[in-house]
């Protein structure tokens, strides 16, 4: 992969930034869907119950910890896989 010019680098950065925003929205959406599905099941009321609220908070915390941990593992494994592929 030949080097990119300064202008090309800037263009790439812009694209990546846009992609990151999209990525965040996607993570956020999945979080809502996931925690809602896991925690909310009482439709005798319009408002979230205390139990449901607590569950959602814990779900968010746990999901963020999961993202962090898997992010680290992914980085390590991806680097190893890339190195292996170049070795072959």
């Amino acid at each position, binding site marked *: *992969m030949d080097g990119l010019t300064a202008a090309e680098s800037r263009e790439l950065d812009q694209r990546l930034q846009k992609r990151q925003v999209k990525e965040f929205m996607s993570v956020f959406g999945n979080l809502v869907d996931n925690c809602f599905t*896991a925690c909310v099941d009482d439709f005798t009321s319009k408002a979230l119950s205390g139990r449901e609220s607590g569950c959602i908070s814990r779900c968010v915390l746990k999901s963020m910890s999961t*993202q962090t941990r898997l992010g680290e593992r992914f980085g390590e494994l991806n680097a190893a896989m890339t190195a292996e592929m170049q070795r072959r």
Partner: protein
Amino acid sequence: MFGLGRPQPTSAEKIAAVENELKVVAEMHSRMVKICTLKCIDKSYREGDLSKGESVCLDRCAAKFFETHQKISDQLQKETQARGGGGFSM
């Protein structure tokens, strides 16, 4: 032959290539998180912290996910070639 070579990639092509590679990696990451969460995380969310068991499960899940990816990639390539196809590598 002198002067005969592949045409240089255009700016757009170079940028697209980098962006695409990152897209592939990001997608794999996203799939892995979804699946390992499903396989390892207790859905009752009684606790806000990852338990030791869940943490270990996530680590192992990630490792196995990558190994599966590689295994399937290799096998697919082998099978495609055996069937006389062009094959592609991931």
